[in-house]
């Protein structure tokens, strides 16, 4: 090979390996922040404690309230996004004329391009007051409206990715189903959805991962109170919100407070990392099936 070719390839390689440095950087930052933290706080206490008051005089370091808050908003979001998103995916794939599909899909995807602060604003100033009309006990900051709005925000993740997965099922299967006299509904649920199931699962996992990591929406609308509860009507705090809250206070470097955000970040990273890898793994398996 010519020398210039070698040099160019080397430079390109360097650019590609920077991505590994980023991962190493993330892990290093999270660990170097967390390890000193875990030297002071036992890991057992951290993952089983139900009180989280690291900023107070009487310090408790149980991450469970933040995990519960994260779980709650995520669960609500998925409860909204999954049925809506999947139905839309099937509708677009099996029922909608191509013109409708090619307009609706991008329009729905607009939902995913809107910055999340905007959703936070909307949840806080419109959705919560609206819901308070039905649920008088609903606090101003709550997991419910943050979760619902987040659910709508991630509809396109599920609808578009699932739609892609269903579209990727070989056309011949659909034709076989129609050729046997199936209705569109039968074609969808008896043939297409089962065949696309791994792709659909991937979309849902990615949506969960997205919901777990969502920050500004919950920081604005869900509250900032770590609380070990699954009650959607009261203020809670997610892992991400906690990091924002401490960051806003402009954390003094090296303090225990500063380290809690890395410990919390580590938990968040582990969750999303597991979800992302799971989805990647399923996707790989699924691609092999149809190649």
């Amino acid at each position, binding site marked *: 090979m010519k020398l210039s*070719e070698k040099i160019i*390839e080397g*430079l*390109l*390689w360097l*650019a*590609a*390996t920077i*991505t590994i440095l980023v*991962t190493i*950087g*993330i892990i290093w*930052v999270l660990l170097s*922040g967390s390890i000193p933290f875990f030297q002071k706080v036992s890991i057992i206490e951290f993952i089983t404690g139900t009180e989280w008051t690291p900023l107070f005089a009487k310090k408790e370091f149980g991450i469970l309230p933040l995990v519960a808050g994260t779980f709650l908003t995520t669960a609500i979001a998925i409860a909204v996004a999954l*049925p*809506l998103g999947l*139905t*839309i995916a*099937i*509708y677009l794939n099996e029922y909608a004329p191509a013109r409708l599909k090619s307009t609706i899909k*991008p329009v*729905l995807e*607009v*939902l995913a391009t*809107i*910055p*999340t*602060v*905007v959703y*936070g*604003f*909307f949840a*806080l100033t*419109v959705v919560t007051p609206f819901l308070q009309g039905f649920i008088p006990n609903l606090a101003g900051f709550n997991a419910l409206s943050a979760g619902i709005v987040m659910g709508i925000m991630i509809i396109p993740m599920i609808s578009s990715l699932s739609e892609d997965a269903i579209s990727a099922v070989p056309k011949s299967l659909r034709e076989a189903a129609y050729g046997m006299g199936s*209705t*569109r*509904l039968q074609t969808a649920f008896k043939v297409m959805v089962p065949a696309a199931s791994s792709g659909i699962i991937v979309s849902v996992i*990615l949506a969960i991962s*997205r919901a*777990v*990591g*969502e*920050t500004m929406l919950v*920081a*604005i609308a869900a509250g900032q109170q770590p609380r070990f509860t699954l009650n959607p009507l009261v203020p809670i705090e997610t892992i*991400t919100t906690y*990091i*924002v809250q401490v*960051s*806003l206070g402009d954390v003094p470097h090296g303090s225990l407070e500063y380290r809690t*955000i*890395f410990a919390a*970040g580590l938990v*968040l*990273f582990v969750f999303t*990392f597991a979800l*992302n*890898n799971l*989805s*990647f793994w399923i996707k790989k398996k699924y691609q092999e099936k149809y190649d």
Partner: protein
Amino acid sequence: MTNSTRNRIKDKAFQVFGIFCMLIGLVFLAALLINILSEGLARIDWDFLTSLPSRRASRSGILTAWAGTLWILVLTSLIAFPLGISAGVYLEEYTKKTKMASFLEINIANLAGVPSIIYGLLGLEIFVRQMGMGSSLLAGAMTLSLLVLPIVIVTTRESLKAVPQTVRQGSFALGATKWQTTWLQVLPAAFGGILTGVIMSLSRAVGEAAPLVVVGALAYVPFVPSSPNDEFTVLPIQIFNWTSRPQAEFLVNAAAAIIMLLLITFLLNGIAVYLRNKQQKKIKW
């Protein structure tokens, strides 16, 4: 009722339900846009765009915020695009199916799914503290660059994938080297797609607030940044700040700033979609 009619009724029923679900999404979107427009549109005027922040909502403007946003966009582009496109080219055109290649691929897929706030922690520790950049534009832009890097890489790869293998083969068969083929044939053919992805990644960067909050971009910054070392604020953070204020006038400001932010986001996405469509029309393989 025969089975067959029952099947057809179910079929129709699901069709109606599908339309209903779609409408929920659309109505929500419309409600959001209408609400924000009705709240904020009247507030937007020249003064709003050119005023510094103020304690009085009515005097407060978004000059520093959009100037900061602009700075961030430019700096992020300069850092993320060369890196991301090079990495994408390497992965798509140069790697064989080695362990290393699949490791890189998993790694990038993972990075794409890392929550943005984690990137904030990375930026805080590496750029702000270790490298001593402080809460500067540069630190913010570097953080966002890493955040959008996976998007740039993935879309670059997809655009390269969309270039038919026959183009490469045609070039190789004429004695072209790998880089000649990549540079003279593949990249030009993929240009539109790459540009689309690049713009999409910018639109993502424009809307991000969380990582910038963590790297410390939330000061009262009553001046327009003049160098990459200056402190800064951006539109989403300005919105976040105003949203967290209880006074109604500030919420109006927030709505108005949201309109500007959405304008930028939609503009970028619009350009991207336009380019994509144009590209698809131009080249029919």
